[in-house]
């Protein structure tokens, strides 16, 4: 599903080279749930961005869903991303649209037939326990609800891979628990999950394989 081989990502700050990822290699099989744990600045977000081709590695091989990611053409990038769901710490909901419209937006963008949109939106909202909040605007949602709405948007397209970048990072314990339960349900449905977090407690609570990142290097792969 995901395979990285000796991946480097080095940023240039003037004459200074700053490695964000150094010689990262690992493999994630289809259907796995993997936690990517590391402190802020460890390289978690950089790594996830490389996986959905929002950035390019300085060096190394990246294979996601059998796509040779660094060498993809623009059309193939779009094709690959249609199979990947991404959620972020800030839910990135569109503020002028209701929860329903936020989820429907991505289906419309991808040309889903009109008659399929409403049932699929409500399937996704039910899966995250948000169907009763379909007409609410993002400003009317709690952070936990906003994150669940973002998850609904990510899974409405039935992705094969879910990349979660600190989705519980700004939530209190109770809300984080709700979001984790939803993500586990999505995983139970057959979606491969790569979950990035800086919260040791969250990583421990998930009790899944954990990749520990430290200063851009994978220092532990356990579970």
């Amino acid at each position: 599903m995901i395979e990285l081989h000796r991946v480097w990502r080095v940023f240039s700050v003037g004459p200074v080279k700053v490695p964000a990822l150094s010689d990262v290699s690992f493999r994630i099989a289809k259907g796995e749930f993997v936690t990517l744990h590391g402190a802020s600045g460890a390289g978690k977000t950089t790594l996830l961005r490389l996986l959905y081709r929002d950035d390019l590695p300085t060096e190394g091989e990246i294979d996601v869903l059998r796509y040779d990611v660094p060498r993809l053409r623009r059309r193939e990038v779009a094709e690959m991303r249609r199979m990947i769901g991404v959620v972020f710490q800030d839910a990135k909901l569109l503020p002028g649209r209701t929860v329903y419209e936020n989820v429907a937006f991505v289906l419309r963008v991808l040309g889903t037939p009109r008659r399929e949109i409403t049932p699929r939106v409500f399937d996704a909202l039910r899966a995250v326990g948000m169907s009763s909040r379909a007409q609410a605007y993002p400003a009317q949602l709690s952070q936990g609800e906003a994150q669940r709405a973002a998850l609904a948007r990510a899974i409405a397209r039935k992705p094969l891979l879910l990349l979660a970048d600190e989705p519980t990072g700004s939530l209190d314990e109770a809300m984080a628990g709700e979001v984790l339960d939803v993500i586990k349900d999505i995983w139970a449905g057959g979606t491969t999950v790569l979950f990035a977090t800086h919260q040791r407690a969250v990583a421990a609570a998930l009790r899944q394989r954990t990749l520990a990142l430290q200063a851009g290097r994978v220092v532990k792969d356990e579970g």
Partner: protein
Amino acid sequence: MLGFLIGEALRDLRRAGRVAISAILLITLSLAALGGFWLVSSNIGQATDHWRNRVRIIVFLKREAGTPESTALVQRVTAIPGVSAVRYVGKAEALGTLKEVLGKDASVADQLPINPLPASLEVTPTAEGATPDGARVLIERLAALPEAEEVGGGSQWIDRLAQARRLLNAIGFGVGAVLALAAILTVTTATTLVLHARRQETEIMRLVGASELMVRLPLLLQGMMQGLLGAMLAIWVLIGSYALVAPGLEPLVHQTLGVERLSFLRPYDVVGLMFAGSVLGGFGGWLARGRREP
């Protein structure tokens, strides 16, 4: 899908706000200027066409010819390239025409001891013969006739009118082009603001795998909508100006150019203006660039 794209484009247009209004007004201005020059030019064109059909070249003859002789002369001149028709005007007919022109003063002509007017040939040139070069060549050929005393007439003033029309077209296109360029830049600015306002949508669209075309189509459409709105306003401005100015101007134009009614733009000119507006706006929208993917 089209409904979704149009909906997004309308949302973007609202977001662009005042800058979009400026862009629409600039497109209105540029197309109204272009359409205005076009309107004046097409009416001048109508006048030149009208008068070009009435161009006559008069060949004054050295002496009056008899019937068989004049028939042969008419046949000979008709065969000259660039000649469409020839009519022989005898001395008596010329005097009769003069009396008609003099009207109540026709008796003056009766005081003349002899008819001083020469016989002549009234030559109607073909379309090629009525052009500036064609008329020059034809006049040279007619002047070479042994029977010809002098050749008069031609199309110089009509050519000057046609020249004025060409100049007007050039000025119109020049002014229109400068204003159109300003309009394109304004639409580009409006679209750049839209791009900034819709960066979250764009980010989500790219994230979920929308094609680049799908990301950019709403921008193109909102640009085209600005252009179309500008063109429609320009057409209303032209219709209003025409309705206001034409009735007062028509008597003067009739007297000077012989054109009875000033005509408005033809339906396909109007469609052309609307098309031009959409292209201007769409081009401006397409030029705007946001963050590029790696």
